[in-house]
């Protein structure tokens, strides 16, 4: 009898432990399931008590629909998240160009219509300086919430999700521009031989400098190298005004104008402004040379690209009409979609090329390096969720954002191109750089060689020794728009490179003066880690 009682207690205990540590399987809108441990999902979800029952939160995101970039994952996992928390999620989609003003209007007027926002990282300065969003450090330590891994982020990405020592958003998207090229075309021995005959040297694959890339792009521009009966292009860029065209310039120009150094000071590791007085550097000699180079490079692509936004330029590359493009992670995963892409399995990727010559402001001249001056970049939005200071339910919003930041959901997003969530955390990368499995990528439609190229290039970019500084100060949007509109004037031949950048500098001075030079300087120094 006593033995039976003991056995009964043991069995009951084991059952209790098993129940307490039961894995939870969640199924998304596409019908795919992921199993989480209790630790991964947090005790709120594991308890099954649905403490957020009756609460509805509203978050804004760039318009894209249920299968669109950044917005898609919210729809995909909405039912599952609502099921484990009891809360309701209201997704408000706002067109890219309207998103920032809508969010800022809500916050600055104190309306508080939205609980959270999926923001571009360049909004951060404005949001933090105005105390419009709240830090999440306390939530991150709380076992009630889903667990995500901030240590998996490279410093380059971590910077975008934090301000000072505080975190403001859990991991979502990691934006940076890398070089995409047609490996099959560049490795073609006939083309290589013809190039050598014409230019007198053999090109590197991938090209090491922008000058080398220009030569290759020029060589391939204007003739039918893919045998489709039409002339093809060397490069394609998205240069339409108001459609993120200026990001191309920001990525390309870095090696021409950022002098690397041990720390961020007046002359080293700065790109946007002089960190001592907020004088714009955008019309300095390095920038002018970079833009002149880009205008030259632009001529080796289709004329229409000055009116193309992302989709049109990407489509041109996916249809196999250009040898090069440089853009965000979306391209790498879209290449795998054979309904849109003709180049699956033919993709090469690398960190953006460098330049042997860089402008040294302390000497007032270009200096030459023995090896190319290469800079990684975090150009783009790195779109991620933040919590409104006006939200009445910040913990519910954090739960949602942390849920999407868990390793399993994050990896699921990265492995599907349409989500717009690009790789950046260590667990997105393949060994020896990370912990992801090539088989998983292949199972989700990636060509194995493409996946290796793509992930290695992103690893090299985000973990590069030099990362170009990112602009995220109050008025950031206005500075970017000024850059965008005047660059477009140069791209369309209305003004010279120097005149366009002089105009940008003039506008930036005006913006800085309106926002207050001293305040801007303080935030700028903080944002670039001046003196560190």
């Amino acid at each position, binding site marked *: 009898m006593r033995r039976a009682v003991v056995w009964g207690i043991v069995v009951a205990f084991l059952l209790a432990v098993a129940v307490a540590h039961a894995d939870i399987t969640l199924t998304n809108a596409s019908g795919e399931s992921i199993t989480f441990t209790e630790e991964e999902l947090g005790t709120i979800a594991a308890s099954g008590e649905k403490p957020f029952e009756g609460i509805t939160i509203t978050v804004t995101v760039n318009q894209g629909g249920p299968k669109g970039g950044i917005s898609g994952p919210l729809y995909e996992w909405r039912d599952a998240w609502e099921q484990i928390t009891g809360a309701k999620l209201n997704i408000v989609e706002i067109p890219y160009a309207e998103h920032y003003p809508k969010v800022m209007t809500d916050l600055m007027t104190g309306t508080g219509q939205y609980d959270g926002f999926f923001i571009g990282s360049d909004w951060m300065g404005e949001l933090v300086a105005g105390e419009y969003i709240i830090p999440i450090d306390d939530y991150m330590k709380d076992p009630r919430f889903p667990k995500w891994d901030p240590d998996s982020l490279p410093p380059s990405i971590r910077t975008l999700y934090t301000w000072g020592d505080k975190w403001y958003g859990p991991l979502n998207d990691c934006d940076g521009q890398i070089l995409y090229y047609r490996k099959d075309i560049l490795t073609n021995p006939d083309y290589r031989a013809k190039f050598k005959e014409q230019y007198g040297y053999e090109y590197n694959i991938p090209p090491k400098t922008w000058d080398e890339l220009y030569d290759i792009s020029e060589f391939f521009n204007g003739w039918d190298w893919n045998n489709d009966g039409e002339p093809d292009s060397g490069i394609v860029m998205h240069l339409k005004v*108001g459609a993120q065209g200026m990001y191309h310039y920001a990525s390309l120009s870095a090696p021409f104008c950022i002098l690397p150094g041990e720390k961020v000071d007046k002359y080293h590791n700065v790109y946007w402004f002089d960190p001592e007085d907020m004088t714009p550097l955008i019309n300095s000699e390095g920038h002018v040379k970079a833009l002149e180079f880009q205008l030259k490079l632009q001529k080796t692509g289709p004329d229409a690209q000055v009116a193309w936004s992302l989709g049109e330029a990407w489509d041109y590359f996916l249809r196999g009409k250009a040898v090069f493009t440089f853009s965000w992670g979306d391209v790498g995963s879209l290449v795998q979609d054979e309904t849109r892409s003709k180049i699956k399995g033919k993709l090469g990727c690398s960190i953006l090329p460098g330049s042997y010559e860089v402008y040294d402001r302390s000497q007032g001249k270009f200096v030459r390096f023995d090896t190319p001056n290469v800079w990684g970049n975090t150009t783009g939005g790195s779109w991620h969720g933040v919590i409104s200071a006006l939200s009445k339910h910040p913990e519910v919003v954090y739960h949602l954002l942390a849920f999407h930041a868990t390793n399993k959901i994050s990896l699921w997003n990265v492995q599907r191109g349409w989500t717009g969530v690009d790789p950046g955390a260590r667990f997105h990368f393949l060994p020896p750089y990370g912990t992801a499995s090539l088989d998983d990528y292949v199972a989700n439609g990636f060509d194995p060689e493409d996946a290796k190229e793509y992930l290695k290039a992103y690893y090299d970019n985000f973990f590069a020794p030099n990362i170009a500084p990112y602009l995220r100060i109050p008025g950031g949007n206005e500075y970017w*728009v000024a850059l965008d509109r005047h660059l477009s004037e140069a791209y369309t031949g209305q003004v010279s490179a120097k005149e366009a950048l002089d105009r940008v500098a003039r506008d930036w001075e005006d913006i800085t003066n*309106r926002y207050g030079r001293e305040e801007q300087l303080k935030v700028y120094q903080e944002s670039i880690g001046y003196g560190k």
Partner: protein
Amino acid sequence: MRRKRIKYFFLFPSIFWVLAFTIFPLVYSLSLTFFRVRLGKPARFVGLANFARILSDYKMWHSLRITLVYVAVTVTLQVILGLLIALLFHQEMRGKSLFRALLILPIFCTPVAVGYLGLTVFYEEGGPINSILMSLFGTKIPWLSNPFWAWMAILLLDIWQWTPFCFLVILAGLQSLPEEIYDAAYLDSSSEWEIFRKITFPMVQPVIVIVLLLRLIESFKIFDVVYSLTGGGPGTSTEVYSLFTYRTGLKFFDFGYASVLGYLLLAMVSVAVNIFFRRIREVYG
């Protein structure tokens, strides 16, 4: 006594409407012009600084200049084309009702949709117009990547959409002209041009002036087509005045200066309207 009171009851909604949605915004925006306003921060009195800023703002002058050119070109062409089509439809012809119905369809389109339609029609790589040009002449037009052609695209869309309005109103004017005058005129002259010049045009002129005036006011406010078709580009070549004002106020939250820009537009349109009305009064008593 009761009837006297009830009239106030019926007047109240319209008085409220005018006060709340016309007078208040007008006065409020006027007060904003004297302040540097940023939402969420205390407004700072800057006197006439926002007005003075106009003088040195090359972006504003650029947008104003291209808006004036746009207004002059589109309004002129729309009225001339509208008049010509109205004269055509004023004659006996088969299928007139059907053609008239088809012709006025563009008026019912939302301008922003017209802009997006333009994106498809003027798409440079494989859009319908360039495909036809390529197959016929082996060339294509850089509709949206060249500042001049981007303007052409906007002008074509705007003229396509609003010429029918001019046509419709002028046609109504033509149809209201008394037949007897024409009967008498045909006794004296058989020249159609003579009759048009000396009878039709002078008699329909008041209608044309009104059409001109309405289109003038509307054209100054052009926004939707430009916003959706070119976004103000390439570069800043199509950044019209309303788009510039919108960006200043609702993108960069510079409300004080945006209010000044709004008042400048109001002043320009008011001056134009006044000149027109004065001229109408002079001519027609």
